[in-house]
């Protein structure tokens, strides 16, 4: 019981991780979407483990899927622990279906709107991680939404990471999303690459959550984490 109980927030300052996941039809091929779904669930479970100590920032995850002319909020912003403990939320990820085209513009517009939503991402939130994973060329107008993201006070300050899946991915677009010469677009030619990339995202976000300055991680550290890939991070 604290004297400040009724006047101080009982919600931790969130460290947001927002995933934009391509679920266009081509993601069905070679089990790419299945691999992405498994990697996301592993990531959320790892975040839960990392947030168990009060000495780390609490990681909040949200997932937006884009395909078949829509951008859908698969997981609303919630703490990783809450998602990991909720079967129906994990099923929402498992139920993602590959279908249709690649409406990246819609996903980016949704992302810009999300970042401006002060209830989910208040000004006390730590700087977020924005992660884009895609295997194809966008089919809609995405340049302006991206411009809006990168010029906005909130989007430009986020740590942005991108995964290029397979040979048909639009690497130029992904590079523009990252917009940081020190952080390359990660390339995955198969399911192992997808898994490896999300291990890197997981470790980068956890490292950042354990810092005295959550949300801040140098580009060089992210790249080093990928190079020092640790096979024991995810349980099979």
């Amino acid at each position, binding site marked *: 019981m*604290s*004297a*400040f*109980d*009724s*006047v*101080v*927030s*009982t*919600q*931790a*300052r969130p460290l947001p991780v927002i995933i934009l996941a391509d679920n266009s039809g081509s993601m069905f091929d070679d089990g790419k979407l299945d691999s992405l779904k498994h990697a996301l669930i592993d990531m959320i479970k790892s975040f839960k483990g990392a*947030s168990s100590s*009060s*000495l*780390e*920032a*609490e990681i909040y995850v949200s997932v937006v899927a884009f395909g078949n002319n829509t951008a859908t909020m698969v997981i609303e912003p919630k703490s990783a622990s809450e998602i990991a403990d909720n079967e129906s939320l994990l099923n929402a990820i498992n139920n993602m279906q590959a279908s249709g085209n690649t409406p990246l513009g819609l996903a980016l517009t949704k992302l810009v709107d999300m970042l401006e939503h002060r209830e989910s991402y208040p*000004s*006390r*939130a*730590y*700087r*977020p991680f924005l992660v884009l994973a895609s295997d194809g060329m966008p089919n809609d107008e995405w340049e302006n939404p991206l411009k809006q993201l990168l010029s906005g*006070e*909130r989007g430009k*300050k986020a740590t942005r990471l991108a995964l290029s899946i397979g040979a048909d991915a639009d690497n130029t677009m992904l590079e523009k999303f990252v917009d940081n010469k020190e952080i390359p677009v990660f390339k995955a030619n198969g399911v192992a690459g997808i898994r490896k990339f999300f291990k890197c995202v997981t470790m980068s976000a956890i490292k950042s959550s354990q*810092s*005295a*300055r*959550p*949300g*801040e991680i140098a580009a060089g550290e992210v790249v080093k984490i990928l190079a020092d890939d640790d096979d024991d991070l995810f349980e099979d």
Partner: protein
Amino acid sequence: MLSKFLAKFKWKLLAASVRGPGHIKDDLPNQDCAYVGFAGKFLLVMVCDGLGSHSHSDFGARTLCKLFPECFLEWSKYRPNKIDDLLRLLQARWLICVRCQGVDTCGCTCQLAILSPKGKGWIAQLGDGMTLVRHNGGINKFTEKKSGYGNETIAMGEGNLLPYWRRSKIDLSTSGNRLLIMTDGISEDILPQAEGKFVSTFDLFFGMSRSKGQNALKKELTDWPTPHHLDDKTIVAIEYR
């Protein structure tokens, strides 16, 4: 000595500063610093918060607090005096003192108050944190408008900082008026619209003897109710009797 002056000029004071759990874990110092003292009849309060990303920000915060009374005395010798001149003087002296460590490693936010024996004066702020003034039952809140995220703020450094300082005249001249100056480790977790209630919570601490009140306040900051809180927390509360 401070207690005598506080009693003479009818001020009640509570102040506490605790190292955040994140800094304890990483073996980093408390990067906040506070100063409360008298320069002649004027009560001076300063609360500084060193930037986490700056390796010597604790030094920067301490230096600024140390410079405050001497800069105030120099500034107050001349008439007419303008608050902006004091802010410029503080910055110039601070730059001279921190140059040896590297200005870009010493950044800190700053909040200050200058109060006459009659309870009137000025507050000024550079960067985040919050100052709350309870004047005749109403609450005035002074804080930075943030468009980005929690760890971003303007701070002491090079260049013309005057446009970034927020300043306001304040009036604590009626009994029960109260001034709270706190770092963002506290202010970021106060619920919106709960500022008045937060100020009133200090009735509890002011109702105790000064040493008991200070200890109780320090314990509350250490056992802060927000989960996963990491930051240092510093607050100075002043009341006019």
